[in-house]
């Protein structure tokens, strides 16, 4: 008893205790000293033994149902192998069962962040087989809608990328602006996602009243939002630490692996199909191809951030220069008659009925059309045998190819960096698995 009493008396003060816990390295050092570490669990593994861990398919940072097998040496990833197919929907098979009129419903659900872009590439492919030219207004409307979609997609990337890397507020910020773009798209197309608005031969409907002001308002707000993200992230030392020099890929690797879009552009290779092989009226509007030279996660983030501003630029030009006229081609074999005509004209009724039951026939042939989606080159390979349904509808999803670059980027990085790298590829599993 007396011993314990003396202990109490001689107990060091709080300050002495704190100093006593200090080690040579610093005041708050929590690393246990060597002799305090007790190794348990039998024989400690040799250094050359590695561990295989599985990530996904149900994992919060794999953007859906991506599964990655990783071989680890301690915390370092030696190799990573994506395993896909968990969202395989059989869309290419379904596409062979649907008429060309119905086809847009199918392709829009492939890349569900770039619905309008997928509809566009499908419509361009069918129009290529039909040798149809769409009116000027339809071209500009399509361009405006696709750029709005690009803004929405990149804004979602900012949100999810921030969340994956740990900047959780970016989730809220990114969705704040994306919500406005979605509302504008809802006002124009009637739906927030999976619009089915760009049809073969034009669009489903004309622009609604008051679209100019609504579009310009969204442009202003998105621009202000991007400025905020820039302040929030670009100079943020934690953000830079997490992203700069992580997941580096070279131009040669990106080209060999079939990577396109921001991944290719982040390696210093300014390739954008909107500039290189212009479709719609992209050779008529003023915008820049954003590219950087480091090929890391930070650069890919930066490219997507500033591409939003380029899209805003294009949308503003579309609003200013939107031509008048028809929004779809006046070919009654392709375009359904207006609702009013159906009540008056027997012929219009028959055309309407035929179009929506059998669809139109497309001459036999094959074509490949590619456009620039937010993730890279989305292509549509379409084979027709002269009937109302395609023989083969193949969509080259950019994420499907970009995902292969994960295998090149991940080795040598930490597990936490692997999450950042997967996020920076921005894969949409819907178009990977189709």
């Amino acid at each position, binding site marked *: 008893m007396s011993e314990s009493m003396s202990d109490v008396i001689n107990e060091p003060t709080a300050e002495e205790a704190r100093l006593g816990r200090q080690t040579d390295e610093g005041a708050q050092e929590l690393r246990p000293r060597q002799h305090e570490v007790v190794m348990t669990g039998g024989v400690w593994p040799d250094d050359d033994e590695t561990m295989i861990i599985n990530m996904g*398919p*149900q*994992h*919060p940072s794999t953007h*859906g*149902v991506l599964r990655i097998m990783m071989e680890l040496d301690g915390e370092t990833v030696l190799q990573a192998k994506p395993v896909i*197919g*968990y*969202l*395989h*929907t*059989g*869309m290419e*098979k*379904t596409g062979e069962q649907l008429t060309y009129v119905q086809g847009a*419903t*199918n392709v829009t*659900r492939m890349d*569900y*962040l770039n619905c309008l872009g997928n509809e566009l590439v499908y419509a361009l492919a069918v129009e290529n087989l039909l040798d149809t030219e769409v009116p000027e207004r339809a071209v500009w409307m399509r361009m405006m809608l696709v750029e709005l979609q690009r803004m929405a997609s990149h804004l*979602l990337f900012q*949100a*999810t990328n921030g969340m994956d890397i740990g900047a959780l507020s970016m*989730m*809220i910020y990114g*969705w*704040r602006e*994306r*919500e406005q773009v*979605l509302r504008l798209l809802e006002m124009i197309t009637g739906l*927030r*996602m*999976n619009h089915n608005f760009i049809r073969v031969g034009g669009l489903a409907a004309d622009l609604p009243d008051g679209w100019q002001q609504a579009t310009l308002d969204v442009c202003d707000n998105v621009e202000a939002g991007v400025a905020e993200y820039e302040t929030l992230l670009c100079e943020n030392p934690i953000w830079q630490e997490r992203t700069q020099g992580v997941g580096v890929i070279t131009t040669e690797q990106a080209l060999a692996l079939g990577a396109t879009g921001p991944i290719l552009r982040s390696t210093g290779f300014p390739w954008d199909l909107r500039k290189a092989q212009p479709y719609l009226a992209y050779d008529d509007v003023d915008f820049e191809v954003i590219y950087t030279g480091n090929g890391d996660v930070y650069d890919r983030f930066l490219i997507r951030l500033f591409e939003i501003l380029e899209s805003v630029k294009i949308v503003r030009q579309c609003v200013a220069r939107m031509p008048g006229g028809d929004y779809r081609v006046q070919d009654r074999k392709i375009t359904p008659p207006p609702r009013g005509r159906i009540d008056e004209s027997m012929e219009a009724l028959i055309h309407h009925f035929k179009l929506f039951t059998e669809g139109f026939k497309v001459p036999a042939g094959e074509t490949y059309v590619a456009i620039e989606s937010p993730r890279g080159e989305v292509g549509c390979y379409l084979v027709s045998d002269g009937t109302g349904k395609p023989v083969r509808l193949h969509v080259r999803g950019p994420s499907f190819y970009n995902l292969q670059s994960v295998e090149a980027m991940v080795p040598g990085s930490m597990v936490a960096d692997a999450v950042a790298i997967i996020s920076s590829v921005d894969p949409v*599993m*819907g178009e990977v*698995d189709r």
Partner: protein
Amino acid sequence: MGLEAVPHNFLTGRLEDLVKWARRNSMWPATFGLACCAIEMMATGAAHYDQARFGMEVFRASPRQADLMIVAGRVSQKMAPVLRQVYDQMVEPKWVISMGVCASSGGMFNNYAIVQGVDQVVPVDVYVPGCPPGPETLLHGILTLHEMVRTGEIMKRRRAQGAGAGAGVQIDQVDGIPSPVRLIGTQA
């Protein structure tokens, strides 16, 4: 009543109501995003629609910490066993919302790859229609579930027969020819 002596900041009630109140107001969903609907599920969680108003802002990455599985998107044949495993890992009481037509009935994808309704794999409490359902629709489904929890029984939640009760699975691979059960670890 004998309660006059108790200070005024006490309430009396049935334990059952307290349990239901607690379950309803802190229902944590598991992150189970599959396809398009997952994006709208994220929209529901984001600032504008703010699921946090219903005590649901914490999307748990581990199914063992989650009460609610929102099946957001189409379930492929390859994913179905994984989905069932995630469901089995969740602790009781647990609920399932089938979000969107693909999860509810296969939607427009009636083909070899897609399970025609997630209720063939797990029991479903609320079906949310739409392709994809907007955040308002999902919130309505969530509030419907909350109402079911509030008015339901706490010990016995589901009828022996009914939606998803016989979640032993029969998925046909080929038209008309029943294939052997493809899912592992399901319960009849």
